[in-house]
């Protein structure tokens, strides 16, 4: 957990956001993230983010589920406790398919949800800094992390010329913490929302 310096630019329209993202990236800055009130189609692509690997993870979880189901059921019904059910063979694959399918889906679904939460650092009680309160309301909030070489004023000016309605420099917690928000950071105590 470390305090870092960020430049924050707020936009009120998708149409200005996209060219701004392009300009800021062309100027050589690395955008940490853009916080939006709703999912914006194509923004991940514009930000140059790599494709998510969660589907590969999902496939692996699914295969794990399939293997678990097949090995467990076949061990139970052929080795551990063979039963004669309606004269069917002990290795009765068609009867197992629904359970194999269910376990595949269960493993893939639960595994992907947990992986997603881990990658996004989401969990009950986990808190992260809000760069702008209105990111959950109507503003598109672009955050750029400052390095030693970054001139925050230049960057703010660049954001302004590209249509940002509000810019500021913040020193804020970069990662997550467990516990509560400080009073001035707590969304529910904000005057704007009261």
């Amino acid at each position: 957990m470390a305090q870092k310096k960020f430049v924050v630019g707020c936009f009120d329209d998708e149409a200005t956001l996209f060219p701004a993202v392009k300009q800021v990236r062309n100027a050589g800055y690395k955008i940490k993230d853009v916080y939006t009130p709703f999912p914006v189609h194509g923004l991940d692509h514009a930000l140059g983010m790599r494709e998510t690997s969660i589907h590969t993870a999902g496939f692996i979880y699914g295969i794990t589920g399939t293997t678990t189901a097949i090995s467990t059921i076949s061990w139970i019904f052929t080795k551990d406790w063979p039963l004669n059910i309606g004269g069917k063979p002990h290795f009765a694959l068609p009867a197992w398919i629904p359970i194999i399918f269910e376990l595949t889906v269960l493993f893939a679904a639960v595994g992907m949800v947990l992986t997603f939460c881990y990658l996004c650092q989401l969990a009950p009680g986990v808190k992260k800094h809000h760069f702008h309160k209105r990111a959950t309301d109507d503003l598109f909030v672009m955050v750029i992390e400052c390095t030693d070489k970054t001139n925050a004023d230049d960057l703010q000016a660049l954001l302004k010329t590209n249509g940002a309605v509000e810019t500021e420099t913040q020193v804020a917690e970069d990662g997550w913490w467990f516990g509560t928000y400080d009073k001035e950071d707590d969304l529910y105590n904000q005057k704007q929302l009261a």
Partner: protein
Amino acid sequence: MASIKEQFEIPGTLKTWAYALIGIGGAALLYGMFTKGFSTDEHEQAHFWGTLMYNTIFWTLVCNAAMFFICFSTMAQAAWMQSFRRIAEAISTLVPVFGTITFAVLMFVVLGHKHHIYHWLDHEAVMKDPILKGKVGFLNPTFFIVWTTLTITLWSYFGYRMRKISSEADVAPMDADTAKAYNIKSMVGAGFFLVWFGLTVASTIPWLWLMSIDAHWYSTMYSWYTFASSFVAGMSLVALWLIYMKNKGYMELSNSEHLHDMGKFMFAFSIFWTYLWFSQYMLIWYANIPEETVYFKHRVQGAYKPIFFLNLIVNFLAPLLILMKRSAKRNFTLMALMAVVILFGHWIDFYQMVMGSLMKEHVSLGWLDFGVLTFFVGVMILMTARALASKPLIAKYHPFLKESIIHHT
């Protein structure tokens, strides 16, 4: 839109190929007709007419699936397929053609009293048989003929109406009110087709045409199964034509985004087909009642075992594993390959549905089957290309076209 190629000119090579396929296939068909079709041996007759039946029914249902695609998309007000809807429309123009051939074949079988194909045609045997006697209200020549005629006529007619409504989008730009009225009109047109489709393909027609070959046996899954089979093959056919047209430099407004969605249809409905296949098989296997297992006995344990498992590999495992990745669905070569594989796989599926019941002892897959297939492929290529050439390739004033151009997944 000046740079868009709206007019399809049939390439000479395509025509040559189509005529060659029709020639080779037609020769096989005629040879088969004289050596087997008009033979006095019931086995040979069943072989020939069965082969003709599953080929015509397969291709009619596949081409009808293209119109089904247009109609359900219209009903859902989907826009993404507008940029290549003319391909699906062109394929659907084959419904009257293949429908007529199907009708002729079925009439020959029914009126010619081929009771070794449809056992229920033998009136004396039916009256002595309590099971068939119970089905006589449905399985009788009069109902078969009336319902088949109605079905093929209305498929053709409602399809024709949809294509006509589609052509209205070629004429002039629409203002908001005209576009709204046009949208409603298309949806009503689609509604007629969809209702009739539900009453035929999704229920009665597979029972009548295919399931009644095993007159004693029945499965409530059968019609959905047949529908899934023909639909996924139809989607593959549309995708295949889309790839061909893109290769020839047409369909500039369609790109890998549209192909991706076709790929999703092929992938999803391959799994849907497997789901129905399994639901039908597993319940019968589980209950293990002789009058039900009779359908699977020679398919799983007899001569049809290789075909039976090939069916599952080609129609389930191959699409599942190959089309799962996003990049595969956006890859034109891989999609073309998989479209051919799926079409072939479901042709094999129809083969085992019909011939598996007619010739239980041995698998006769050979020159006659591939010859008749060649003939139908040739006719399909030629007629679809002609239908494509007869109309602009883009419904350029369609209210949803813009949404289709900017479509991305």
